[in-house]
């Protein structure tokens, strides 16, 4: 919450819902990093996680990468303070290129851009 995170009002709303605790941050960061590495390693030569077979994991992965590495506003409009929070994570969690390329493939073949609600 604050300079590098969500606006205080948003953060105060989300924190209790997701059990936020500042002393859990180092472990949480490590776990996220491990999860990202695991996904990157799981992507092989095929277009999807399970080779040529599209599964829910491909969709979930593409969506998750959007949080860690937001698409530009013309493809995924996000309110500036919220975008700032997501963008600020980039300095601490860089997404492996394999995952970014997989996301691009997913939007090219199966998902729609721009992302609108």
């Amino acid at each position: 919450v604050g300079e590098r995170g969500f606006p205080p009002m948003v953060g105060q709303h989300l924190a209790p819902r997701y059990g936020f605790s500042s002393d859990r941050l180092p472990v949480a960061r490590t776990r996220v990093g491990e999860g990202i590495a695991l996904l990157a390693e799981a992507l092989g030569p095929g277009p999807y996680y399970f080779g040529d077979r599209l599964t829910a994991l491909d969709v979930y992965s593409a969506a998750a990468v959007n949080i860690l590495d937001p698409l530009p506003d013309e493809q995924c409009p996000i309110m500036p303070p919220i975008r700032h929070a997501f963008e600020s994570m980039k300095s601490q969690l860089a997404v492996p290129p394999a995952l970014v390329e997989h996301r691009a493939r997913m939007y090219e073949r199966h998902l729609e851009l721009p992302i609108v609600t």
Partner: protein
Amino acid sequence: VSVERAPVPEEIVSRLRLTCLDLPEAREEAAWTGTRWLVRKKTFAHVLMIAGGWPPAYAKAAASDGPLCVLTFRSARPALDAPRFRRPPFFRPPWFPDIVGTSLGGDTDWYEVASLLTRSYCLLAPKKLAALVDLEHE
């Protein structure tokens, strides 16, 4: 996605293959781009071409739009923190804390590359397999 995907020169893949597949239970497979070598499910070496600014993350990390052949591997501290890993031909991609990249070309010291890849393997391999490498190389 319109991208230029240049293949890694076969002579480079062959040289790396000699080192990587000599390591216990190491295997080779096509990566999302280029070729990678794994022990169990962990990639200890990945070679690919940067061309036309693609893949952008690699182009940015290596400060080159290519064509440039690059290899990534893992390293442990204190070697990881050596200043030379932040100078060409080395570079430090940001997506894993222990990943190092190097460009490959005419000036490459292939003995050093072999050493770095062996260390990368030992870092990621189960202790039982890494111990075999120590026995073989000492």
